[in-house]
């Protein structure tokens, strides 16, 4: 009995014979990996240097555009204050993220099992989605008051739609043959959902979650513009009115860093959970 499996094992053996070539190959791969990581860093550093020089050479006023070194100084000097403003924004963004996505997943599940619900409510979801965030925000402040609630609601709303669309698609797009397989195995509807539809939807869900990770932070910040005394959004408004550009830039750096970290965590979870997914395996 000759098999592909044993062929492949033998091929593995054939590769191992030339250990030196193997080591050279791996060395090249490592170098390429470092190159991929270092190039963007070098580009960012280069741009910062150009910016710094431009501010000095053209004598640009700090309130129009502060030099990177000045922004860095403010970041260090006001680090405690910046962090205490990040906290409410982070809480709002994370709560909104959880609420919005949980609601989207629940409603997508309902849509998949009850077409009528989808036909009735999907157009409503589309309509709400077409209202710009800056227009939704004041309405929600009027409805929910001046606390964290309207900010959480905005972050949730902004996460909701992409997840609803992707999750519905992921739950529905299972192959007919996989469904037939489940029927041959006399699987219950619950088993079909948990063992087939939910797993099938995971890659779709994660692409939506990655979008939601950044938009939830944007939602919370926009909510804070309408009326808040603390938070990244409030700080942006204050710094702008005071022509305190270095603080404005420092605040933006903190907000972006948080957004990027959030995105990174979701990407990391995706890589861990979706090892089986060809598109993400590489």
């Amino acid at each position: 009995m000759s098999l592909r499996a044993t062929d492949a094992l033998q091929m593995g053996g054939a590769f191992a014979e030339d250990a030196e070539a193997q080591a050279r190959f791996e060395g090249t791969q490592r170098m390429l990996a470092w190159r991929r990581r270092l190039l963007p860093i070098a580009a960012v550093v280069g741009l910062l240097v150009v910016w710094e020089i431009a501010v000095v050479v053209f004598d640009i006023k700090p309130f129009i555009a502060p030099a990177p070194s000045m922004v860095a100084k403010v970041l260090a000097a006001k680090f405690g204050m910046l962090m205490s403003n990040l906290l409410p924004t982070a809480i709002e963004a994370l709560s909104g993220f959880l609420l919005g996505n949980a609601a989207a997943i629940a409603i997508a599940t309902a849509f998949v099992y009850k077409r009528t619900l989808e036909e009735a409510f999907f157009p409503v979801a589309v309509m709400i989605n077409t209202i710009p965030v800056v227009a939704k925000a004041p309405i929600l402040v009027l409805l929910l008051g001046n606390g964290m609630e309207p900010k959480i609601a905005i972050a949730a709303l902004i996460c909701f739609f992409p997840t609803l669309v992707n999750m519905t698609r992921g739950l529905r797009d299972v192959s007919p043959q996989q469904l037939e397989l489940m029927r041959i195995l006399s699987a219950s509807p619950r088993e079909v959902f948990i063992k087939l539809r939910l797993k099938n939807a995971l890659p779709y869900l994660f692409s939506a979650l990655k979008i939601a990770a950044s938009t939830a932070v944007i939602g919370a910040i926009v909510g804070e513009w309408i009326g808040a005394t603390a938070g990244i959004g409030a700080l942006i408004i204050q710094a702008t009115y005071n022509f305190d550009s270095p603080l404005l830039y420092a605040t933006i750096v903190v907000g972006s860093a948080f957004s990027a970290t959030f995105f990174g965590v979701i990407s990391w979870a995706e890589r861990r959970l979706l090892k089986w997914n060809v598109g993400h395996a590489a």
Partner: protein
Amino acid sequence: MPALALDRPSDRMAPTAAGDATPAITLDRITVRFTTERGTVTALDGVDLSVQPGGFVTLLGPSGCGKSTLLRVVADLIAPSSGSVRVLGGDASVARERRDIGFVFQDAALLPWRTAQQNVELPLEVGGGRAQPGKRSPRELLELVGLAGWENAYPHELSGGMRQRVSIARALVNDPKLLLMDEPFGALDEITRDRLNEELLRVWEETGTTILFVTHSIYEAAFLGQEVLLLAARPGRVRELVPVDLPAPRQIAMRETRAFVELVAHLRRVLETC
């Protein structure tokens, strides 16, 4: 056109089935119609079939002649518009619920988030109390289909042939009495297909399972089957039931023998009129 050669000579039965009374599959005047926006299609028109326990019947016909539909009727995936289906002496649904039917799809239909072994274990996890394990463990079944050492590989790490082996192992995990295979090797290259054909015969001999195997390859139909059921298209109906008189054990080299060549020529002639 009326079905020809339907009277099965009793000496054509599988060796293991000698004297066994109830056929594994009995189809009696099965008709299946599909209604779509474009009208009604008669996929099967009055099809009769009887398969003895332990038998290996191949279904051969042009595409669209209802081969898949016939398999789905036997597997209780489609209810026929008229006619009666008996599987293992009872209702097809009873056989399905008892896990007496294993099904192998053309594209393997593995769950990509499960490793080879987890895919083979799936039938043991779903379907509530029906999921009694068979004589062989999933690991032993993977070994039986030549995949020892690949238990933890994900489907995207396997070749087409290896995926199909996993799906055969999965279909065998409950020791089904009946294995239904819908063009399982249709998407594979010829060399892999030949190899899997030989191995399937070995698995069939080792397990004693009854097999109904759909193919559109004349060679495959003749090489595997103890009988070849030729179907004609539009509407799908039985054209001829051809007994295969080739000695066991069958090997790929046998395809050069005179008996095999003549059989293939006969099948081709009939197929041209389908």
